[in-house]
């Protein structure tokens, strides 16, 4: 009995920290932060507001433009490198400040960071995504923003991306990681 409990505890700990199992949330740090608090659904509206702001920024920075992505991959403009570089710089400083001063969320919960574990998918998948990015001129965020700007045919690109995600899930165990 005691052994079983210990096993459960160990498993749970691995689930939270190691992030290597091939079951549920593995390889996806993005899906990881889980609040202990239970909120009504409309608390999620604040993420919609954050999304609206992000969507506006993506459009105004022209990073949702197929042309800007082509310029980037042909080294014909500094714009995209400037956007990504300065975004990462601000992100690094922000995360550093949050860790340094142990800043909490607005609900007074400690902010958690999850380490990403390397697997070969970071390379293979990364290359495949890069191929697609150069063709569509959009990563997932801009796909949504592009549809919002009235390019309704991008719904097809988005559906195709969802199918791609599904097919990955289907063949996942057969792929090298």
């Amino acid at each position, binding site marked *: 009995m005691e052994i079983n409990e210990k096993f459960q505890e160990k498993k749970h700990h691995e689930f939270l920290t190691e992030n290597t199992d091939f079951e549920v949330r593995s390889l996806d740090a993005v899906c990881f*932060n889980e609040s202990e608090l239970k909120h009504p659904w409309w608390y999620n509206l604040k*993420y919609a507001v954050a999304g609206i702001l992000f*969507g506006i920024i993506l459009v105004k920075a022209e990073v949702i433009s197929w042309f800007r992505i082509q310029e980037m991959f042909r080294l014909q403009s500094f714009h995209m490198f400037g956007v990504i570089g300065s*975004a990462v710089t601000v992100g690094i400083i922000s995360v550093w400040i949050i860790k340094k001063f142990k800043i909490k969320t607005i609900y007074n919960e400690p902010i958690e960071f999850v380490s990403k574990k390397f697997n070969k998918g970071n390379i293979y*998948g990364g290359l*495949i995504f890069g191929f697609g990015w150069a063709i569509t001129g959009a990563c997932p965020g801009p796909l949504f*923003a592009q549809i919002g700007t009235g390019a309704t*045919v991008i719904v097809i690109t988005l559906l*195709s991306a969802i199918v791609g995600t599904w097919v990955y899930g*289907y063949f996942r165990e057969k792929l090298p990681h």
Partner: protein
Amino acid sequence: MFEFLKQPWPWYVAGPLIGLMVPALLLIGNKSFGISSSLRHICAACLPAKISFFKYDWKKEIWNLFFVVGILMGGFIAIQLLTTGDPIQVNPQLQAELATYGITNYNSFVPEDLFTWPSLLSVRGLVMTVAGGFLVGFGTRYAGGCTSGHAIMGLSNLQWPSLVATISFMTGGFIVANIVLPYILKL
């Protein structure tokens, strides 16, 4: 002020604002910035098909779906209220190259010479829209994240696998944009 908002924003304004999404999402609910996982949640919600990768409680991650719907709405608001309607200014070299493939319309972010409903009937349009989208969805999930999850959130948290992923994104993009895409555009 409003006139400034209507102009395209320079990188040193837009980039830092994008970077601020990282602490914003952490502070308002302990969420790691990332977008491609929304595609996974949609799979889990619509067609999990007993695939273990999609068997999880997607409702716990519903914030991510609110976030992407917000992005779509933000795109709508920006294009309706915050644009001058001027054509996009691109490098003349790129303009000259694209002209040889019949791409001359710079009025929208998504080139109307490439991505329209009728273009789906052409080989070029079909390959770029459908195959391109597939590679984005398959690749981001295989890589465990996209430009937001790896290049911005991962690098902000100094995760070296995210650096590997980001370098891979860029390498893949450079190869296809410079070597493969010209053949696709000729279709």
